[in-house]
């Protein structure tokens, strides 16, 4: 009995010691106290590349990132990229402000909102925007095939599933409803992870859901439309943010990052690389390359369109998240803007 009971404890202690000695918490070495927002992660060595930490959501859309890392594009620009997995864009912002990462993968609306509240951040590179015609739509507001809801106007008082309350999908869908004459306050918004939204609609738990066509996959639903097409002008779906102190303390690094992203994007959009690109993305995001190939592609763009930023500011004011648009020129530095 004695031996039996201790035999549980000893392996546990050994495992603990082994992990601690192997230096598991490497990432914590870079996190610092909030008042010292200057990071210690980017260490320029004399001739070697600069190590930077980039947050990722491990999305299939981030194929350019995987390509750039795999094919040495970042290295060509003097950067060594290490990815840090986060759950969402706002966690990414917290990560760069705390120093746990250098570049945060965040959507455009969140970036504006956080900047407006006083976060010391700037957008250093774009990733992708909502696709415009003639490209096929990539998002959908959908219902069950036999649902009595015929148009979004019928959604008053009903439950709509979105992935995050106050997130870009919620805001854009609300804008579309408002455009059709529905007050978004009269709708019940429910936050759920994307797969749950799809299942919720299919099983009749939700009256409607908003998700990417990629999330819907083969499930049988009726699409009411794409809120990102019908409700708003172009929006910046994803971009990369960095803190003011990082940009100041590491001159040139953000520019190099932006250039590397632009080149990686050009590479994955090259028709020659399509199959390889899907295979690589599938490997990193846990999906099937054939499925990826059939999905609508994002509008990749590494430079920020200032007109789009102004539109997004107006959208946020219209939906009540801002009273006054912030100065976008302070949010987007010169090198990141579309010429």
């Amino acid at each position: 009995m004695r031996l039996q009971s201790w035999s549980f404890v000893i392996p546990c202690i050994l495992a603990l010691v082994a992990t601690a000695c192997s230096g598991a918490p490497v990432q914590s070495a870079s996190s610092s106290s909030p008042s010292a927002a200057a990071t210690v992660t980017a260490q320029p060595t004399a001739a070697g590349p600069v190590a930077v930490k980039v947050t990722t959501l491990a999305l299939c859309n981030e194929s350019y990132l995987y390509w750039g890392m795999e094919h040495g594009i970042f290295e060509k620009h003097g950067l060594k990229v290490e990815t840090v997995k986060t759950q969402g864009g706002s966690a990414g912002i917290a990560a760069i402000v705390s120093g746990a990462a250098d570049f945060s993968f965040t959507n455009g609306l969140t970036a504006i909102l956080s900047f407006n509240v006083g976060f010391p951040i700037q957008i250093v590179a774009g990733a992708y925007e909502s696709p415009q015609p003639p490209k096929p739509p990539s998002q959908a507001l959908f219902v069950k095939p036999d649902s009595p809801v015929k148009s979004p106007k019928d959604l008053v008082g009903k439950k709509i599933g979105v992935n995050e309350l106050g997130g870009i999908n919620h805001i854009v869908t609300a804008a579309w409803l408002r455009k059709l004459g529905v007050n978004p306050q009269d709708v019940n918004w429910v936050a759920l992870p994307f797969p749950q939204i799809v299942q919720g609609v299919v099983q009749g738990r939700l009256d409607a859901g908003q998700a990417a066509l990629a999330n819907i996959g083969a499930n049988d639903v009726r699409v009411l439309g794409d809120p990102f097409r019908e409700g708003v002008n172009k929006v910046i779906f994803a971009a990369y943010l960095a803190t003011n102190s990082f940009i100041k303390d590491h001159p040139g690094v953000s520019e190099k990052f932006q250039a590397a992203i632009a080149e990686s994007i050009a590479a994955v959009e090259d028709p020659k690389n399509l199959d390889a690109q899907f295979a690589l993305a599938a490997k990193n995001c846990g999906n099937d390359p054939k499925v990826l190939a059939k999905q609508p592609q994002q509008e990749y763009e590494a430079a920020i369109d200032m007109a789009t930023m102004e539109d997004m500011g107006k959208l946020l004011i219209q939906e009540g998240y801002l009273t006054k648009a912030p100065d976008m020129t302070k949010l987007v530095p010169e090198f990141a803007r579309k010429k």
Partner: protein
Amino acid sequence: MVTGRPLGPRAAARGWLERPIRVLGAIWLAVVLLVAWELKFRPGESVFMPPMSAILGAFVQQWFVLDPGQLFVTDHFQTNAVPSLLRLAQGWTIAAAIGIGAGLVLGIWRPALAFLNPLIRFGMSTPSTALLPIVIVVFGITSSMNVALIAMGSTWSVLINTIDGVRSLDPTMINAARSLRLGRSAFFWRVLLPSASPQIFAGLRISLGIALILMVVSELYAATSGIGHVMVFAKTTFRFVDMWSAIVFVGVLGLLLNGLFGLVEARVLRWKLESSRGAGGS
């Protein structure tokens, strides 16, 4: 505290101070912490941590209003706090009922306990958020779903503490009951239940705390209203003062619930405290 000695004139004159001094003795630490926050986090010091004065101001303004017609609470309170509290009440009551009922049965009937023990330990270790998909399917996106999550997460401590309370029944008590020829029913109500009740109450107190937390957590997703709903919306849109105001609300709620629970507990367990005091305890 009652000594039966009459108060001298000086003590009687001091009597009116006693109440405020006792209150001060209880709250000084809380006040110190609040002041420390206010001194440390001045406006603009950190975006995530607004000054305590701003938080408290928002707290009062968002949840309360000086209108007896509205019962002194704002519409915001009615739309969000009331549903949350209802869910908490329902969920915790269900958890308490199941926990105590099943706990008594399992505590007495050893084979059943052995049968279910691994499942109980397993259930304790799974975070309720992981079971969210199943609960949604079964209950839909309604308040019942939140109630179910709250109940599922807070039963465990009541259950386990009840089982422990029943099993730690002093063997001499059992013998005494037997020699007094107490019937089954009398044994249960007069010996077993009272003996286990301090442990049961400890479990209920813990589960109340867990239920409050689950009330908030269950509303982070899949809810259309509630304190957790307000909290997560404020967090995503970077309105941190509002987020902290909701957090303070939850903290105050926890204090009130604990206070109420303590009063009820003291009342019900009065005999136990008195008997142990009589035996020379402090």
